[in-house]
């Protein structure tokens, strides 16, 4: 079973519906035993970093997540779940989980495109993905594929070795990051049509080893 971690952070049901469509049994849960005995974990999230961290700690799920990752279980972070895995966030200077070294940064303002146009923050809508490091979970991603983003902060790992894909929005931002059996996408792959479902399926078939 795939455990979708429930810490009251947004629309978990859309992840569940996407996994159901792909035919993978899953459950939304905050039960520690259930999470630790699951085959793999999806760690979604929307909203503010501070509240998410507080809710996770309150439920004891920060430790569970760390334990699962250390045990080699494949873990997928989505959106806020791709941010709070770093050491800290500029969003109210929130200390985060420290599962990947680095920090979460606010888009600089004003933000302008290469063509000199003013860009709005949040970064909301469909944008591309440059795969810069081969990864089993990104198998089959086409250069023209686009994914759905909604965020004002972005993950910036301390080292390029953790950056798997990038996206251009005024600046280049890491949009897929990972370390060993942990991978995380800033975009909502459950809301990114067929290309998003393809990545989700790859994750469900992934053994947690990188190439």
């Amino acid at each position, binding site marked *: 079973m795939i455990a979708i971690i429930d810490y009251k952070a*947004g*629309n978990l*049901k*859309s992840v569940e*519906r*996407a996994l*159901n*469509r792909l035919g993978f049994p899953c459950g939304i849960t905050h039960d520690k035993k259930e999470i630790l005995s699951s085959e793999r974990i999806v760690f979604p999230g*929307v*909203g*503010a970093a501070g509240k998410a961290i507080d809710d996770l700690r309150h439920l004891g799920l920060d430790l569970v997540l760390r334990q699962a990752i250390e045990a080699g279980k494949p873990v997928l972070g989505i959106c806020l779940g791709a941010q709070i895995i770093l050491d800290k966030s500029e969003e109210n200077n929130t200390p985060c989980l420290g599962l990947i070294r680095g920090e979460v940064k606010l888009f600089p303002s004003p933000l302008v*495109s*290469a063509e000199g146009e003013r*860009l*709005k*923050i*949040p*970064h*909301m*809508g*469909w*944008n*591309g993905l440059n795969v810069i490091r081969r990864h089993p979970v990104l198998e089959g991603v*086409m250069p*023209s*594929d*686009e994914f*759905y983003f*909604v965020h004002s902060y972005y993950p910036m790992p301390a080292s390029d070795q953790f950056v798997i894909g990038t996206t*251009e*929005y005024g600046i280049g931002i890491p949009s897929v990051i990972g370390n060993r059996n942990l991978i995380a996408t800033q975009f*909502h792959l*459950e*809301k*990114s*049509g*067929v*290309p*998003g*479902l393809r990545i989700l399926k790859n994750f469900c078939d992934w053994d947690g080893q990188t190439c």
Partner: protein
Amino acid sequence: MLSKRIIPCLDVREGRTTKGIKFKQNVDIGDPVEMGRLYYEEGADEIVFYDITASNERRDIMIDVVSRVAGEIFIPFSVGGGIRTLEDMRRVLLAGTEKVSVNSAAIKDPDIISSGAEAFGSQCIVLGMDVKRVNPSATIPTGYEMVINGGRTYTGIDALKWAKKAEGLGAGEICLNSIDADGTQDGYELTLTALISENVNIPVIASGGAGNIDHIHEVLTRGRADAALVASIIHYETYSIREIKESLHARGVKVRMTW
């Protein structure tokens, strides 16, 4: 770079899709679940349902429709119409949407924007604006006034002032509908759209008036819109979403071309 979005809008009344002209007549044009799935497969970037069910008792039908659509489409899904309270928002979000739009309820009680943003996140809260052109005055300096009840009631609120206020309260996006242009198929209200879009930092979806692809092109370029809402021109199969996107792409507008 970010793509401009093409967003089909379905007006749903008691479980069926309808299309009205200037909010007056409504004709049945199909099953919303089937149409939602079809537009998803055709490359829609997002789907908006607008509940125009007259009575509160019949709203359960909408919740059922929303949850069936949510199981079929894997792109952002937004529902508006009749959203008055936090509980209304919660029901729609739990049924499977990413966003809810508030319109007249926010004019009567702007706090619903901030409480909705606090409870569910700004990214969930779309401000629906119905706007009519009027003579500029001290209260309506831009000459664009907020209206409610399908344009029958003037509120005395300037559209630009309202957009900025709502942004400050935590609205994550604006769906900007020109009552003057809606249903005419004569083109979007470009001046209004550019005015709002250039003066807020949240995305603006232009609504009302699309009759051909030139209109969509205009509003995404000169009108500075981040997205275009389309209804009649796709419901009546004047164009498919793919045709719209191919044409925009050929004219240099960045749109999502694979799905």
